[in-house]
């Protein structure tokens, strides 16, 4: 694997291989010394043009557990916030000898531009680009689902026949896009539930079923229900009238979560707006896999960096 830009580029087999590697990496976390020497001497740069403490820290921990040297460039306090261009920053990092660049950018496609530009030769990992994709989030979500369903017997398994309902701001969600492609490649059925204003105007050709009605979606008893974060500024742009109405119609409240099958998994990419898209009861219920998602993020990102940098088996 040269870069990880989009989950659309991953085949079923490549995705399973990545998840299996992540299983191996998860085992490392249970050891007394949580560190592998695999990427010693490699330099991983976290290039964050947009704030995201969680994702940045997760990638930092992942790289450090593989013994890579980690440099973090974040927007605040660096030349990045002073209008330095993507090109100049990339060329600077190339001159410093970065082997991999983990990039978070507010512009969709920025990682692809970096990968295609010739400005830098490093492997590029998309850590979230605009409203396009967030591939490692989808990988950690798939990992979490597989682990919940198959436990220790997860290795080698896909998600054939698993139903996943993703609820909320699909229009602006890079998590929804990356999950759609990846989960579908793994054999899952994906549904999007949202008000029409928060669904793309066209999803022609997408392997997804759309619905406006969360109650129907809950009563269908999905294996997984994934709630997306709602940004406050969407209200001002007339996507919905106010938080109360959104929460009533599309929030996973205590009553709705109680109607889900006991085995259903409740997920959220975080950070959560408790009381808006998800109630505290739902977030903290035994169905919730929110904290597992965070933990699995590190192993999944270790797997991605490993495949990018170790010269391991081709995906």
């Amino acid at each position, binding site marked *: 694997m040269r870069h990880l830009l989009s989950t659309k580029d991953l085949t079923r087999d490549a995705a399973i291989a990545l998840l299996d590697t992540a299983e191996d990496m998860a085992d490392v976390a249970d050891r007394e010394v949580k560190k592998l020497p695999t990427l010693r001497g490699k330099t991983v740069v976290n290039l964050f043009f947009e704030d995201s403490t969680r994702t940045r820290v997760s990638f930092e921990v992942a790289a450090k557990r593989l013994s890579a040297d980690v440099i973090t460039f974040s927007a605040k306090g660096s030349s990045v916030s002073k209008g330095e*261009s*993507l*090109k100049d920053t990339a060329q600077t990092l190339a001159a410093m000898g970065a082997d991999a660049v983990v990039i978070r*950018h*507010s*512009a*969709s*496609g*920025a990682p*692809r*531009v970096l990968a*295609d*530009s010739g400005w830098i030769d490093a492997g590029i990992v998309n850590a979230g*680009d*605009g*409203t*396009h*994709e967030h591939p490692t989030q989808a990988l950690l979500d798939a990992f979490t689902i597989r682990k919940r369903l198959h436990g220790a017997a997860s290795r080698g398994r896909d998600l054939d026949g698993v139903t996943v309902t993703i609820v909320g701001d699909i*229009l602006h969600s*890079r998590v929804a*896009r990356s999950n759609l492609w990846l989960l579908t490649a793994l054999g899952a059925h994906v549904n999007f539930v949202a008000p029409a204003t928060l669904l*793309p*105007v*066209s*999803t*022609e*050709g*997408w392997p997804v079923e759309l619905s406006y009605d969360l109650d129907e979606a809950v009563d269908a008893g999905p294996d997984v229900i994934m709630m997306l974060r709602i940004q406050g500024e969407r209200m001002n742009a007339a996507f919905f009238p106010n938080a109360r109405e959104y929460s009533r119609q599309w929030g996973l409240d205590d009553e709705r979560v109680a109607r889900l099958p006991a085995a259903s998994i409740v997920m959220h990419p975080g950070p959560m707006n408790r009381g808006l898209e998800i109630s505290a009861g739902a977030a903290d219920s035994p169905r919730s896999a929110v904290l597992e998602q965070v933990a699995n993020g590190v192993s999944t990102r270790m797997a991605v960096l490993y495949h990018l940098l170790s010269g391991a088996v081709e995906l």
Partner: protein
Amino acid sequence: MSTMRVTGATLPDGSGVDLFVENGVFVPTAPKGSTRIIDASGLIALPGLVDLHTHLREPGFEHSETVLSGGRAAAIGGFTAVFAMANTMPVQDTAGVVEQVQSLGERHGYVTVRPIGAVTAGLAGEQLSEIGAMATSRAQVRVFSDDGLCVSDALLMRRALEYVKTFGGVVAQHSQEPRLTIGAQMNEGALSSELGLTGWPAVAEESIIARDVLLAEHVGARLHVCHISTAGSVDVIRWAKARGIKVTAEVTPHHLLLTEDLAASYDSRFKVNPPLRRDEDVLMLREALADGTIDIVATDHAPHPVEAKDCAWGEAANGMVGLESALSVVQTAVVDTGLIGWSDVARVLSSKPAEIGLLDGYATPFTPGSPANFTLYDPTASREFGVGDLRGKSANSPYLGRTLPGRVITTVHNGYPTVIDGELLDSAIVAESAEAHRG
């Protein structure tokens, strides 16, 4: 004063002819004395091309283009006249600025430069600019446009149509409903959703055109619609024309050839406003050009410096250069596909844009007494279009690396050559010829 004899040219209607030029105009018989002889056998003689929609960037953005460099780009593309859009800095919204642009064009001489005046002061969309002053200035402005921005306020648009009518001019509208296109990056559809790029919906163009044709009808004014890009816009224009509304429409070469799929690379050379659309839009635009619903092709030549495109899609500037490639792109999109012939090309790229812009001298090309503005074009040539084919200051062409047919061999402006043997004449020589022509 240069005299000229062009032998063996084929006119747009297919007839063969020798052309004679003296004192800047066509003459019926060979001029006496020493004459420049141009062998045009195998070449098509087209009337000098007229671009109703060019961004020359001067004054204010001379790092992107100047009147001189844009004139050179135009000449190598076969153009002899360009209308320069108003979004300069300072804006072409006063007599002083339009006269400056006009005189720069006259001095450099590669093409006739006709400045377009801003509709609203500073392109701010709030109050009318000094339309009368520009119309009666030495630049004699007749086309008014806020291009780049839409005159979105309905009342202001109504007033603009009425006021411009007072001076015999035309408003050229950039049809883009601003609220429907906040942050818009590409055509809205399944692909924009997949790429995570904010959509620019077709309705944002079509709704403004619909409103404007009704306003034009109501006040009895003439309206020109810039760069239409959607099949729905064609429907609206067709309806308006059938109703007798005085509306004309233009399409760019790139909207006749390129589609939104190119955005999937996030290569910002393909970022343009209005955006590239779907296949079905491209096919409808071609048909509409062929059946006359769309009146003209205009380039929307929009030069940008390297740094404005060498970045993420969302951060990149909108626009493509188009003067150097326009004729080749029209050939590949609508001539080689059998939709139109060369006499139609002459109409949509010369006589009709001149008529819309009230530019004299293009109504009866090649006839004795008409200004000698023409280009000799080799439609059998084929080339991989590259940076070396560009002559303006900027290289933001979407066609780099693409094979395009045809090549401009000679361009003659007001009876003096600007391009010979496929290459521009030196700017000092052209400026001298222009000065001699002015007398």
